[in-house]
């Protein structure tokens, strides 16, 4: 019986964004990484191109809160207190393709570390690994701006991915990214229109489009993942239909969001139906990551080594040998 594969040809293309800079480019990274470039829905090789496969980053911390789940603490041991060594372990042992330095300890209520301390930690991580870095801040605008400005300055030329700016707080950090050659994450609260608006605001201040990554705000499995999932599908569909203000690669946080929720911490004896808590943490993060991958995620920041290994292997399999960098 005859059958013709129904293909949908798109006019839009996701912008290619590179992170990191080699010595020739003014940085110190051994290589850069690139995401984006897709001309079809995720993994639809039958009707478009995906020159770059989605990448998995792992995260290190300036301060470990006492809420950090014990299942992960057991995995990492003391090294989790030492961002430099932790970064090395993530790259060498677990295959992290980028490292995110989360500077939550600079939040006035979560440690109030100074901008200089944050800069020191970032420099330490830069020295311990050669992969490109993501710098992840928080939502205390004044302090975050101060910290990010400083970090952008001391890492000038490295083309870090600075995460993130919001609608009410983007100018200072965006200006610092332009001044010191970094790439920027625009974060909006699970909303198509707000996402577009913020990207327009940035381009209006002449922020280069090839330096923007979008964060649609991750809801973990069981905590709003369906909203994130559908917003991402809508953003990606709009982008492929030609909307240039939506055509940026997307960043998601399956690790941070999954390991905040009760389901990855509550002991099995309290919730026997939920099963083994260590396995559960890994499954929770894998489910969050896999569903967001098929919705269009290009860059995932993950926590559990088993989840990282599983998702990375799947991504490679789904690319079937293509898009190798």
């Amino acid at each position, binding site marked *: *019986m*005859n*059958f013709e*594969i*129904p293909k*949908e040809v798109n006019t839009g293309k996701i912008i290619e964004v590179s992170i990191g800079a080699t010595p020739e480019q003014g940085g110190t990274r051994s290589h850069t990484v690139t995401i984006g470039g897709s001309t079809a*829905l*995720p*993994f*639809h*090789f*039958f009707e478009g191109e995906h020159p770059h496969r989605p990448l998995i980053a792992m995260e290190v911390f300036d301060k470990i809160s006492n*809420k950090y789940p014990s299942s992960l603490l057991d995995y990492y041991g003391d090294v989790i207190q030492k961002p430099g060594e932790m970064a090395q372990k993530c790259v060498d042992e677990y295959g992290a393709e980028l490292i995110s330095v989360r500077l939550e300890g600079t939040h006035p*209520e*979560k440690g109030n570390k100074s901008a200089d301390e944050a800069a020191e930690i970032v420099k330490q991580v830069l020295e311990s690994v050669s992969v490109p870095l993501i710098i992840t801040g928080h*939502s205390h605008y004044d302090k975050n701006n101060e910290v990010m400005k400083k970090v952008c300055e001391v890492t000038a030329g490295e083309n870090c991915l600075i995460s993130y700016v919001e609608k009410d707080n983007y100018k200072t950090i965006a200006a610092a990214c332009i001044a010191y050659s970094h790439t920027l994450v625009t974060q909006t609260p699970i909303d198509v229109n707000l996402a577009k608006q913020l990207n327009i605001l940035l381009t209006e201040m002449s922020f280069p489009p090839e330096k923007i990554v979008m964060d649609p705000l991750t*809801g973990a*499995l*069981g*905590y*709003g*993942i*369906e*909203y994130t*999932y*559908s917003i991402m*599908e*809508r953003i990606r*569909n709009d982008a492929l239909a030609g909307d240039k203000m939506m055509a940026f690669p997307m960043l998601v946080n399956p690790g941070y969001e999954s390991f*905040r*929720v*009760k*389901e990855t911490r509550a002991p099995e004896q309290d919730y*026997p*139906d*939920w*099963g*083994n*808590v260590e*396995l*559960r943490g*890994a*499954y*929770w993060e*894998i*489910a969050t990551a*896999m*569903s967001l*991958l*098929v*919705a269009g995620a290009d860059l995932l920041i993950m926590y559990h080594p*088993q989840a990282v*290994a*599983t998702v990375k*292997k*799947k991504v490679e*399999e*789904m*690319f*079937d040998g293509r898009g190798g960098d």
Partner: protein
Amino acid sequence: MALSGLDIFKLLPKTNCGDCGVPTCMAFAMKLAQKKAELSECPHASEEAKATLGAASEPPIRLVKIGKDHPLEVGSETVMFRHEKTFFHQTGIAIQLRTSEGESTLEQKIREIEEYKVERVGEQLEPDLFLITHDSPEKDIFLKTIELVIENSTKGIILDCAEYETLKAGASLLKDSHASILLKKTVTDEWIDLAKNYNCSLILTSESYEDLATQVEKTKQAGVQNILLNITSKNTGLQIQQNTILRRSALKKAFKPFGYPLFNQINTESEFDMFATAAALLCKYESIVALHEYNRALLYALLTLRQNIYTDPQKPIQVDPKVYPIGEPTPESPVFVTTNFSLTYFIVSGEIENSGISAHLVVCDTEGQSVLTAWAAGKFVGETIAKFIKTINLEQQVTTRKIIIPGFVSQISGDLEESLPGWEVIVGSQEASDIPSLVKSLSLT
């Protein structure tokens, strides 16, 4: 595929006789297109019109049921993306039983799966089916396994057995159970008859679209309409693409041979790999997924994902409006108030828990709207919150008179204080994630 009013008009007699109760054929065609009338109301409609309209009103993807008492229903989907409307019939999760595992292991597994039920957001979640794969040299164990499932479980059954006589004996045990037969070889008349005689659906398998379509046509013509499609792929990436192509062909091209629910069996992988594939395919159109391994953590995560993806995007899920104890609150513990949008509830209760204190969380009825939406709609304002607190007799249950409202609705604090004499209204943080620091700064205990 839906016909337009004009398409339908062309099929009508165009005599404007009015017997249908509408003055003109055109007006009647418009009503038909809007599904506000039935073709049978026109006594003069031709056979051709009946046939064409009949075919057009068939759902683009057939609904198939597996099981007896509470059958699993799959298929009948209408969109490619859940945001376009919703996904209707959630993915059925099938647990594989291999007859080579031996009777005692099988019996234990069946009991375990039958007992596995977990509640989430007021819904009971559980796996739906057993896939019985016959890979033991003994014929009897296949029949024995079927009997064990019938005795211990009400879940539907999929039979997977390459040997015709054995399968037939198995199917005869399940005559009225709407079982399904997983056929891994090209379908033949023999198998179709068997499915017909024992009232089973057929899962047709192929690596190629053309061959699969041919098998479907043959099966349909021979009188078996309850079909599922099993297009096999060498990896997860191809499976996503193939599932998409089948679904798209059915919905966008009205390609009838692919208008059936999809079956995916995930083999040969570690539990983690299997889970990752199942999770991706659950989002991308698998109607039934068969798992060869399971544990409670795996099932809980997969069932939660299914619940999330198959939630109607237009209808926010709600939790019961009432007072929820967080930790072990005493009458002096503080009172937090929020809306009954389930996501809001989950996040707020989780963050209060994270802060380490015990509290009473009052969840108001906002018809499932989030804080800001409910406030804008007048469902989460001073008066309504006060009224709810009175209705549930909170003042008799607690001695504290401190109530914390979400930071986003600080503007209602005056109204609330007026409507709740004797209470001190505290404006909390905007973000739930800041509740722990709020608790600290207020020195709440």
